[in-house]
């Protein structure tokens, strides 16, 4: 599973609100579709995504079949210090994904 992360502005000033976006490649299979032979394609969605900023959880989302494939999520947080944003997620087949990105904060 590949993912792309964007943090703007970069670098951010300490105390500034930053916009964090993530785009994850995932089928987000709804469980409502059938294959060519009429069998139900089992549901496989990312059901939980979290983001930790220097070890502190700053964002958590419960996802379900209403979310499109290749989900794009965006949230805001306050730039406190330079460091790392660590995303991790898990889908219905218990496949875990992770991605990280640096965050640069100036005084």
């Amino acid at each position, binding site marked *: 599973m590949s993912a*792309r992360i964007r943090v703007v502005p970069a670098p951010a000033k300490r105390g500034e609100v930053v916009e964090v*976006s993530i785009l994850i490649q995932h089928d987000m299979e709804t469980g409502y579709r059938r294959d060519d032979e009429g069998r139900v394609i089992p549901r496989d969605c990312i059901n939980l995504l979290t983001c930790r900023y220097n070890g502190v959880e700053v964002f958590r989302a419960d996802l379900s079949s209403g979310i499109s*494939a290749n989900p794009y999520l965006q949230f805001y947080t306050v730039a406190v210090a330079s460091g790392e944003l660590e995303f991790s997620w898990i889908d219905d087949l218990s496949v875990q994904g992770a991605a990280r990105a640096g965050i640069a904060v100036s005084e």
Partner: protein
Amino acid sequence: MSRAVPLLAAMLALWSPGAAGQERRIPAGELKSGIAFASPEVRAMQADDFSNPGMLWVEKGARLWSTPAGGAGRSCADCHGDARSSMKGAATRYPAIDRASGELLNLEGRIRQCRSERQGAAAPRHESEELLALTAYIAHQSRGMPIEVDVDGAARPHFEAGRAFYYRRIGQVNLACANCHEQNWGRTLLSETISQGHPNAYPIYRIEWQTLGSIERRLRGCLSAVRAVILPYGAPEYRDLELFLAWRAKGLPVESPGVRR
């Protein structure tokens, strides 16, 4: 009159331009990429490389480009070097005649041929992640460059076949490609604005598909919409048509990976 006819015939014989010299039904000044007919949201999604989901495949393609594959243990990069320079403009010239076999190949066909003949790997399946990623990565290197296909010489019969397909009414709905994309572009069909049907953004991330797809997949969608026989992937008719479409779109900049509804 009896004198005028042979004179006219002689003039016609002299005036035999190559296919490239023939007039296009949509002149260059009126050519519009499909993105021009899309909603502002879709346009914004394509314009921003971060939000364009097709870039996920481009990144994957970049990784595949330098990963050895097949029995030969060679990667694309081992022969072609840095795609950012070696593949620049490549997509603008496809479909093109393969010199060795004389066959018309589209970009996917060329990648499949390289995989099987030069790298000794299995040719990637149509619409597989591998093929879509490599196609997206290679096509992306031509972004902004105008489409410039060669429709003369050995390509000519393919071009003519593609054109004949384009103007032939098919399916239970009895429509030719031209009925929508040449005679009615810019008008609405249900909730959709009919585009001119250009191939300059493939592979595209189609929101309806929820994934990236090739031009063949899109053409299959049209065949299904007019309730015609859906040709199998890899059928030569698609490539002939693709060549005609590329000629029709000559001059339009490549947008790959495009985003469409």
